[in-house]
């Protein structure tokens, strides 16, 4: 039971990062390393704010905004100085590491004793059987809310323009729009999602940890790739929905590996192996389509 709850909780949190990765990796074809920095940035900002007595719910939009700013800086570096996508992200990610240390004053902060969105919302009585699901419910509601907002956004003119940049940059120019600013917008949104996820993650585990961001992009990309596999089977499924499922499936695989006795230190290699398997399978299928 504890295992399932853990899978759902972490799956939902990382689904938020994956929404961002869907925008950058899938729509814009931009491998954005910034998220490895903006995820802990969201954690850090949240921990500091909560320690200073700010309402936990207020930390969510604030984290989103600071994440957006980080993404905008990456985008700006990329389009203005013509620096490669991966490198632009790494530059910002690296500087965020120091920023986080500066902001927190040290490599970790505990907010375990402090208020959090999870402590503030309890659908079921604490201590009851269903009480164990309280956090899952909060996370589920947040994920669904953001999924709906993102779906709605992608149907707007701005959302369509974002999709066009990934689809055909030249068309965006012929529409009289600056494709560079559209890319910056996409990166901003994606990192907003990552920092928001970081904020929730910090409140979930009750701490900020400087190294918590390592591998965020890889996980998010794995989630997106697994999720989009589902849309091949369930054609009517919205990409955002499939990304949520992708995240849950990924977590389930990790959870299962740990259940079988893999030590937590092997987690990253499991992640890497899983991503490799998914990509290889994915490529095989493409080949089949071409042949």
């Amino acid at each position, binding site marked *: 039971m504890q295992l399932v709850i853990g899978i759902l909780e972490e799956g939902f949190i990382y689904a938020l990062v994956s929404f961002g990765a869907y925008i950058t990796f899938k729509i814009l074809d931009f491998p954005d390393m910034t998220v490895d920095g903006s995820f802990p940035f969201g954690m850090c900002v949240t921990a500091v704010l909560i320690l200073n007595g700010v309402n936990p719910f207020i930390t969510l939009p604030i984290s989103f905004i600071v994440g957006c700013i980080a993404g905008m800086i990456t985008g700006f570096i990329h389009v203005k100085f013509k620096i490669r996508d991966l490198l632009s992200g790494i530059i910002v990610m690296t500087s965020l590491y120091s920023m986080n240390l500066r902001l927190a004053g040290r490599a970790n902060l505990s907010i375990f004793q402090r208020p959090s969105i999870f402590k503030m919302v309890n659908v079921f009585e604490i201590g009851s059987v269903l009480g164990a699901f309280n956090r899952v419910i909060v996370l589920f509601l947040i994920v669904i809310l953001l999924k709906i907002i993102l779906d709605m*956004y992608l*149907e*707007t*003119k*701005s*959302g*369509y*323009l974002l*999709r*066009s940049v990934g*689809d*055909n940059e*030249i*068309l*965006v*120019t*012929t*529409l*009289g*729009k*600056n*494709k560079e600013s559209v890319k910056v917008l996409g990166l901003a949104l994606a990192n907003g999602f990552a920092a928001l996820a970081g904020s929730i993650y910090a409140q979930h585990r009750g701490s900020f940890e400087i190294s918590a961001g390592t591998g965020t992009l890889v996980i998010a990309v794995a989630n997106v790739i697994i999720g989009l596999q589902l849309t091949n089977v369930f054609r009517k499924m919205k990409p955002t929905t499939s990304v949520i499922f992708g995240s849950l499936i990924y977590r389930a695989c990790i959870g299962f590996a740990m259940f079988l006795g893999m030590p937590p230190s092997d987690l990253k290699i499991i992640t890497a192996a899983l991503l490799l398997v998914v990509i290889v399978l994915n490529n095989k299928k493409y080949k089949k389509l071409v042949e």
Partner: protein
Amino acid sequence: MIELNSVFKYYNPGLVTENCVFHNFNLKVEDHEFVSVIGSNGSGKTTMLNIICGSIDIDHGNIFLDGKDISREPEYKRMYRIGRVYQNPAMGTCPSMNIIENMALAENKNKPFGLARLIDKKKIDYYRNELKKLGLGLEDKIYIPVGSLSGGQRQAISLLMTTMSEIDFLILDEHTAALDPKTADVIMELTDKLVKEKNLTSIMVTHNLRYAVEYGSRLLMMHQGEVIIDKKGDEKKHMQVKDILDKFTEISVELGN
């Protein structure tokens, strides 16, 4: 009015592969002129269109649009007033979006891309009607991703899309080259109709001498970055495919083949 004033364009300056495409190039296209441009491969036709649209920088000279110097303006700003169809049918549309979505994007050109919904269900009949005018049966395929349509169908949609917003100039680069003869004729006919309807100032590059002679109000022939034939008015009307072929032969003789 489009004006190119003593334009110099070098590719790869300073390298062994340095290539001077334009050396003091001048051209003036009057309002509502429809210029067809022909010329051998590598004569600089595409480069000229890219220079006008701002897809590439020039080394010297000025470009004017209605008297305004746009030489320093980025490409996307120049496109406010210019519509463009490329030789490659894939360049004018978004492949993963369907016809309606593509048309709605095009219709929103020069308007803000804000948080309003892009697709207005009430407009679908209008889109369908516009497609019907093409006579290619596309009105029955409106929910198919454009990427899975044929090149000719995509090119027809691209052309339609450029004329869905208020533009003054139309730039066409061999836009019928990838099409079968029959579809090419359909698209060419449509181009002519749209240009006349909207009173556009147009430049059309083509390798089809018949189109160059039959359509347009002015004919240019380019060779090695220079204009070697420039006919308009009655002179243009009396031009025949044979006259152009003669000129082509003359050029190759000069080059020693």
